[in-house]
């Protein structure tokens, strides 16, 4: 999977490396700001009130 992505990135190695870092940063940002805030209330970690 990662090999496939690497081989399909355009440009010389340096450009590919920068693109790869940007891709990783994008995925991390997506997780941090969209996926985790959405998933967190659904997980059994942090309910602090009694019913």
């Amino acid at each position: 999977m990662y090999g496939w992505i690497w081989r399909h990135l355009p440009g010389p190695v340096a450009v590919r490396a920068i693109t790869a870092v940007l891709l990783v940063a994008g995925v991390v940002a997506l997780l941090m700001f969209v996926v985790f805030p959405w998933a967190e209330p659904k997980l059994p970690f942090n309910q602090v009130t009694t019913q």
Partner: protein
Amino acid sequence: MSTVDHSDPPVSDTRVGPAGGGNRRDPVRTAVRAIGELLITAGLVVLLFVVYEVYVTDITSAAKQRDATAALDQEWQQSTPEEQQQRQEHYDGPEGSGIAKMYVPAFGADYSFTILRGTTEKTLEVGPGHYTESGDPGLPGNFAVAGHRVGKGAPFNDIDLLNSCDAIVVETRFSWFVYRVLPKADEVADWASRAADPRCTGVGPLGAPYDRVVGQEIVSPTQGSVILPVPNRDDVTDNAGATASLMTLTTCHPRFSDRERLVVHAVMVKQWAKNPDKPGETPPELKETS
């Protein structure tokens, strides 16, 4: 990404034949590698979630808590002359608005949180939330507050470390209320030995109907009776009908789990009206930081 090395000639491939294209096109190998990469990725995502939960939410919540505190300060400063005259507290703002500040000197002089109205997920991201159906600060009944233990500023991270007689100071627009943690279950029997401690003045087993109220308890999440006017007694439903002024803190337990709830009960032992002429005055209990 070091596993991605397809340029080497197949060294150990003995199956080169009419059907073989070398390692590169071996579907089994490709599939196994893909599964492995997915599993590693999943592990990294879980680790990242821990970072998010424990650190990142702290950062965003700290900013929200700052805003809430600033808004509350401003609201207090903008009291109308009539309000100043009557010194009437009101906590009827919208869900998520600040109603009071809490201090726990035992956690250090910088431990201060603005308590907000309501206990929705969104409110608790900002700071400790007041169960709206529970009592108001300083009044008879039970002033119950929920707070996060992990992430989101973790206001109640350490409330398991609160000892009996530790002060929880609540500041409202016109007053300071000093609550102190009640004797814990194993201290009730021998409480006389602690009564000499000046910090324990006014603290002690409360007697009936409070005989089921101790300083700290761990309950199931469904045990909503801990925030009743008389905790764990459902025959008193009106806060005004209670004889003591209690404060109850709830958070999740054990840490990183919501299997149970950690509950701390405290009783009000003192209150001060703020002196309008000395706006910066604070009660001496705030200095009990040792």
